[in-house]
């Protein structure tokens, strides 16, 4: 409800009194960094599971600050355990099989950092998870104006059945994959020897598949609901933005549904409120999140992050050239526009990519960015068609 009020009040403020939203840069000196962060969100899916161990960082030029050389293991309530090994700085991996991940069992993690401090989490029970009955989309217009105008697009929804008390607390992760087409142009490369060559078709990647984990936390308590079918649980809104092409060819959304305990739900829910539901007229105080991981020898040490064990299920939906949207291509995307004579080039500037495009019976030849002739250059992009495509 508060989110709805935020929308209404934002609307009123924008329409009536010209509200203003600006970027804000806090003072770096005000920061307190270096707090230990342990994230271990393990599921009942057999396979590799990861524990992240790092320290918090400042707001300017932030990057993952790993804590290497730690010991980490997950322990089942009956004493059985699996040890994690560091596979890249700050990331610890272990294969957890189905025999270990028994639904109904409780687990905890133990961590020893290189400085010798020992940490242990509270026990968390592995709960079953309801299936997602269906995942679908509707064409909508996003009216939540923040930085840009509203867009038409798709809103994805899920239906699921709530018929067990063990399903009381749910969380969802969303991952999108979409097909991206570069414009139909002839590609060239000016190589390091100053030779201009036509890019062979094998190097001129025009169709790619971009996969992104969608930021944003989706969580819900079902404890106040009656058993039944939950319909139209709304998820991500995918805006139809011409340059992004997300909806122009084929779009897929993968929804992973996790079943949490009360403490785990509270953690994710508060993380959601403090990171997604702030601002505007009815600000709420950001929660000072308490971890369920503690220093064994110093109860006053503040730890960030959380440990959860969750049952997980998933569903994927596709949208292929959905009706009701303007899917006309953006013809000027990557279009090679000659810019007149430039300065001289050195070997350090090479290679440089060029493209020739045809339009209205003529052609245009000019330097372009590499991603215009090789769509693999986009972030999280590959030319290999996913198996589910």
């Amino acid at each position, binding site marked *: *409800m508060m989110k709805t009020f935020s929308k209404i009040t934002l609307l009123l403020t924008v329409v009536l009194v010209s509200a*203003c939203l600006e970027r804000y840069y806090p003072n770096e000196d005000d920061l307190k960094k270096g707090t230990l962060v342990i994230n271990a*969100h393990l599921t009942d899916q057999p396979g590799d599971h990861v524990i*992240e161990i790092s320290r918090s960082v400042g*707001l300017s030029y932030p990057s993952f600050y790993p804590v290497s050389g730690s010991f980490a293991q997950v322990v089942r309530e009956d004493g059985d355990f699996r040890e994690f090994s560091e596979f890249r700085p700050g990331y610890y991996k272990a294969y957890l099989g189905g025999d270990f991940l028994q639904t109904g069992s409780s687990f905890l993690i133990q961590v020893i950092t290189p400085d010798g401090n020992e940490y242990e989490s509270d026990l968390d029970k592995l709960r079953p998870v309801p299936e997602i009955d269906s995942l679908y989309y509707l064409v909508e217009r996003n009216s939540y104006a923040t930085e840009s105008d509203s867009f038409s697009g798709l809103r994805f929804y899920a239906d699921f059945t709530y018929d067990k008390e063990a399903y009381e607390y749910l969380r969802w992760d969303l991952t999108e994959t979409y097909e991206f087409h570069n414009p139909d142009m002839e590609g060239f490369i000016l190589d390091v020897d100053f030779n201009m060559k036509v890019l062979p078709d094998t190097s001129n990647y025009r169709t790619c598949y971009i996969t992104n984990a969608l930021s944003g936390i989706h969580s819900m308590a079902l404890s106040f609901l009656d058993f039944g079918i939950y*319909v139209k649980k709304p998820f991500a809104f995918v805006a139809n933005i011409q340059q992004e092409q997300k909806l122009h060819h084929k779009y897929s959304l993968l929804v992973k549904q996790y079943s949490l305990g009360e403490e785990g739900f509270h953690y994710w829910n508060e993380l959601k409120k403090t990171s997604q539901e702030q601002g505007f007229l009815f600000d709420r105080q950001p929660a000072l999140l308490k971890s369920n991981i503690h220093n064994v020898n110093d109860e006053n040490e503040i730890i960030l992050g959380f440990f959860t064990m969750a049952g997980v299920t998933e569903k994927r939906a596709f949208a292929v050239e959905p009706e009701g949207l303007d899917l006309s291509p953006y013809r000027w995307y990557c279009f090679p526009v000659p810019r007149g004579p430039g300065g001289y080039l050195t070997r350090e500037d090479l290679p440089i990519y060029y493209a020739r495009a045809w339009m209205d019976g003529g052609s245009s030849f000019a330097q372009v960015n590499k991603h215009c002739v090789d769509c693999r250059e986009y972030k999280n992009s590959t030319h290999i068609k996913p198996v589910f495509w």
Partner: protein
Amino acid sequence: MPRCDICWNIVTLFPMRIKRLLLVPILLLSIASMAQSGSERVNVRISGEDFESLARQIETQCGCAIYYRPEWFQEKLFSYEADSVSVDDVLSRVLMGTGLQYSRVGDHYYILPDQRLNMNLPVFSTSTQNYQEEQATGEYMGVKDDLYLTGTRPEKMARSIEVGERGASLARGVARIMGKLINISNGEPVMGATMVDLGSGKGAVSDQNGNVSMALKPGSHAMRFSFIGMASVDVNMDVHSDGDFRIEMHPAVIALDEVQIMGELYREINTTDIGVERFSMNSLKSVPVFMGERDVIKISKLLPGITSAGEASVGVNVRGGNVDQNIFYLDRIPIYNTSHLFGFFSAFNSDIIKDFSIYKGNVPVNYGGRLSSVFNILTRKGNNKSFTAHAGISPVSANATVEGPIKKGHSSFLVSGRSSYSDWILNRMQDPLIRDSDAFFYDFAGSLNFQPNEKNVFNVLYYQSYDKFKYSTLSDYEYSNRGASASWEKHVSPAFTSKVTGTISTYQFANTDQSEISRAYTHDYTLNHNELLSEFQWIPALKHKVDFGASIIYYRLDRGVVEPYGSASIRNPTDLGFEQAMEGALFLSDNIEVSKWLSLSAGLRYSFYSMLGPQTVMLYEEGKPKSENSIIDSISYGNFEPVNFHSGPEFRGAINLKAGPQTSFKFSYNQMRQYLFMLSNTVTISPTDQWKLSDYYIKPQFSHQLTGGIYHIFPKAGISTSVEAYYKESSDIVEYKDGADFITSPLTETVVLQGSQSAYGLEFMIQKSSGRLDGWISYTYSRSEMLVKGTADYESINNGNPYPSNFDRPHVLNIVANYSINRRFSIASNMVYMSGRPVTYPTSLYYINNVAYIDYYARNQFRIPDYFRVDISLNIEGNLKADKFMHSTWSINVYNLLGRNNPQSIYFTPHEYYIKGYAFSVIGVPIFTISWNVKLGNYESN
């Protein structure tokens, strides 16, 4: 001893002009000695004595002679006490209202009926300009000029009135007089006017029904009645015994006399009031406003000690207290939601408001129930002389008021309404969701006023406000205040007044949320407040006033059932519960002027409260956080069975130490108890926040406040200055656990924590209330801090460390200035500077699966950028013709003239590897509005 028999025998034989001519040689003979005569200082002590005694005292000390005719003073007794005053001062005060004037020629004082001797030749000067210049130097040109200027203003003519019965014996030696002050133009009582005995300097203030009372010694008293925007009335009051009188006051003809702040300068010095602000709406008509809507709550934020957490936020924070620590009375109807449009506008239509008072320091004993302040808003009574109407439009709303007599001079009605029409803006938007949205409000008030005789007054007020928001088909929200009050005030005797008031007030909201159809819900909430209040005032003796009474409140709170909405909703109905409670109070206060320099006010309010069944109280396992999981048992209470009982005294006291006629020092101690509070987990009050009664677990809140102040006035310049310092400690203040949700569970105790709040501050105020330029400058330094530290970690907030309140703004500077160019044009400006409010900032970032999240470590340890705003307005009155059917006023306002972005909130959103910070400003550009008001009649019409 009369010395002037011969002179007067001569003078009285001739007409006025001849008298003056005959006096010329006498005066010429005396002029030479004038230069030698100084302003001799004398000490005067008379009490109910005749004029001869006074004259003798003066003559003995000054060596001068006073000439008069004894028969002019027959049966007139005088009371006057003063040290080291000039003879001129004594005579001018004593003769005030007698129709007699004195003139000084050297060491001789001549007393003449209704005229003065003219010392300047030629005698007949009729230039207005000369008159004004002479007035400025204290000289006086003569009665002809006086008549020239005031001949059309009979209220300026001094007259005599008699109070009580001649010859009545007064065993106690004191007469209690009770007056009724009436605005002659509309028959409305004049509230807040002062009655001052110019002889003794003692004064009193009229109440909301225009009644004013005082204990005086029998004899002749020069009395002055004054009020902002009204012409002062001077009378010679011959007091014989207890009795009533009536004074009719006229609106001031000269608009430049109007001042911004209500209240006589001297009242601030003479009374024990401390931490009190008073306004009349008339005096605020030039202050720049937001979107053309005059708003008492926004204006109150320009005063010292009153702030809010945001630009468009509901309610105010007074002296470091939470928003729910203030009560808003509209003619004693408590208004539980004081906002329209989520706080952009106040729910009070300024057209019905006559004036309002804010008690934030020493609160009178007949008010209670909130820790921080009482906003006492009084409505206008209908015009009981003639029918009239007002109307106005602004970009947001239109309003209209009709009023008139039911029985001329005795009873009247007033009906006023205001409605928004802002939907047209939304309907023009392209976005279909916005186009389908509505935002609408209205308010309505109707009042009846009966005054069958001078001893009885009946008032009835009905008030309703309503707001509705519809966000396409996703959400509906509406709320309303409805209330009525009926009061009967009876003047049993001049010394004793009683007043009985009955009020009912209902606050309701209803909302439907369909943002997710499977958990769509609808929820209704209702709070009823029914109150009976009896107040009595007794004036047992001179300089002694006693107020006492009792009140009883019955609360009926239906927190409502959160019910599934629509066939697809699988939400379980959640009954948030029904509550009822009784709150009562007995109160007594004694105001006494111990001496000329010391006044005391001592009061006690004893309040009690009990929540009543039916109620089921959950019992929780010891040593564990209260939650549904730790319930071990429950207790059931039957209908009207007490669930809890709290009671206790609230001591209220104040001292006024006068350090002279223009300076005083005041101190007060004030205790308050509060038995209901607001369930809110947001920084500013949100629409679905609920009032909740103190219950089995949640204890009543208590505060005590110590205030001290220095007050000094500069009467000639019309300037008053004050410095007030306060320290306030409050206990059992309600705070909320992270993630508190008030609609999924009725068990409020599982999400509530209680802590202590401490606040202190220093408030400076300089106020100019006369002349072409008026207004005020206020500066406040204040701090407010919360501490929630339980015995266990889960009972603490901010790790059990103190943290600044959400509205803690150390520095606040307000400047309000109004310049009257002439009677038709005035410009006004506000300047507001405030320290940014506290905010909880990220202290660092951390990563979960490559997404950056924020670590908030310590609550409210940082501040958003400071707030600075300048507003300006131009008010244009229509022409000043006396004979016109309709008078209109244009008001051109620019709010936030500098277009400065003042952030309301700072927040951060996570992104892959980094976060983005945003500053949200409610108003980011100058807001230009024009509003138009029209009324029947001319400029002076009410």
